[in-house]
């Protein structure tokens, strides 16, 4: 029973650790906002090109891309928060406690998921304020779920890297790398408007499939096929992350 009690407490601590620091919230909320302003205003004419979803504006398209960026940033912040725990040796104390190691990771990932969800809610409010509407209310719920799962899946990879290396500089480099991976997907421009080699990169980038699903509520409505593809992509990322976390934690314990 004590084991079950630990998970919510660890999740709460993980969420508090990230939500209470402006430098952790800025990449999740401020950075995507800058992208939203820059791309929806600066590249607004893109909507006139054939291949852009008919009847929608650049803002409608950008909002899904910025939600993806926000969720991925939440994942990166999770890794950086893990590094903080390693530096202050909090993780070492937890490993000496009787809490199962799986729950240590789940607690961290639950906090990351909450941060991702926060980004989803904030950008949905921004979308509403500026006139974008989801096709159905249930679409919004699917969007929030995908948003949280994206943060968790990406966060599992960054947490794994943090546990493995213990180096702030290594985890910090994941931030620009993650932005680049989001940009090299369909997040900000539909794939039909991407030229090679970017289109080929986007095709093999799992974030493209997540991005397509996050766009759908604002562009036409959620479809099962796209949502399933996104869930498969997230499952692949999550499995990579889970393997990385398990191996890294074992490495740290045996270390």
């Amino acid at each position: 029973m004590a084991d079950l009690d630990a998970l919510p407490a660890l999740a709460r601590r993980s969420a508090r650790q990230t939500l209470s620091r402006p430098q952790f919230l800025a990449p999740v909320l401020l950075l995507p906002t800058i992208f939203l302003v820059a791309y929806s205003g600066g590249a607004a004419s893109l909507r006139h090109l054939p291949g852009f979803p008919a009847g929608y504006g650049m803002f409608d398209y950008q909002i899904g891309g910025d939600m993806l960026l926000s969720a991925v940033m939440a994942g990166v912040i999770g890794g950086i928060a893990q590094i903080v725990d390693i530096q202050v040796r909090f993780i070492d104390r937890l490993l000496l406690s009787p809490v199962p190691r799986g729950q240590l990771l789940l607690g961290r990932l639950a906090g990351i998921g909450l941060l991702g969800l926060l980004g989803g809610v904030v950008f949905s409010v921004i979308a509403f304020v500026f006139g974008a509407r989801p096709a159905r209310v249930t679409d919004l719920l699917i969007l929030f779920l995908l948003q949280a799962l994206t943060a968790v899946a990406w966060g599992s990879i960054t947490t794994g890297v943090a546990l493995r290396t213990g180096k702030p500089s290594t985890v910090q480099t994941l931030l620009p790398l993650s932005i680049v991976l989001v940009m090299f997907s369909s997040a900000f421009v539909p794939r039909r408007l991407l030229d090679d080699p970017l289109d080929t990169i986007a095709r093999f980038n799992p974030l493209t499939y997540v991005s397509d699903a996050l766009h759908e509520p604002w562009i036409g409505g959620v479809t099962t096929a796209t949502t399933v593809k996104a869930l498969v992509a997230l499952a692949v990322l999550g499995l990579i992350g889970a393997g990385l976390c398990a191996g890294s934690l074992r490495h740290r314990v045996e270390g």
Partner: protein
Amino acid sequence: MSVLALTRRGMADLRTSPAGVIPDLIAPTFLFLAALGIFGRLADLNNFSTNDFTSFVVPFGMVQAAGLVGSGAGVNFGQDIRTGLFDRLLLMPVRRAALLISAGIAATVRAAIAVVFLLLLGLALGARPTGPGNLLLSVGLAVAFGAVAAGWGLFVALRTGTSAAAPIMQAPIILLLVLGPAYAPRELLAGWLQPIAAVNPVSRLLEAARAPFLHGATWSSTWPGLVSVAAMLLVLYAAAAWLLSRHNR
């Protein structure tokens, strides 16, 4: 003399390890390549000012690189203030202005390195300026924006006294850059953005730096950019100097 010595100190890391410039180049390079890749089709629009998007976006890449690297001056300055080194420098027999000018020059040199790198990358990707004189004008304006960004970074560092204010140093610079004709000419921006771009001083600078890559620089395309950059330099360095004059008094 003191300005030269302090500038050399500000660039010590580059002299001992030239590879130290690489982190300065990563973000601007990726942002430039991403803009080039994802918005390239904008040039297919009939009313786009050119069909060569690479030439259109290279000046923005250079100005963006200068802005990102230049604003980093505040990070080092803030760290010196926080660690107390700045207070020790103030005890030296040098004018306070020398501390500010040297930090600005050191950041501008770093920005110039990033600008030249982005230019070479752009040329390798097919951008074609209209002539060598025009090219120098474009580079000069981009580097000058590096000095502007450094002025802002130094102002924020003096106001906050910490390097942790880095997001406040960089975010407004990026916002100023993108709230203008960054990826498309002004007439193709969203309706709400056009009046903002019209009063944004960086728009004039960007258009002046871009003209040499499109149809060639003329006096009428250049002077608004020169006035904008001069005004931004004057305002920001005067504000930073005012804060410096009040520091520890």
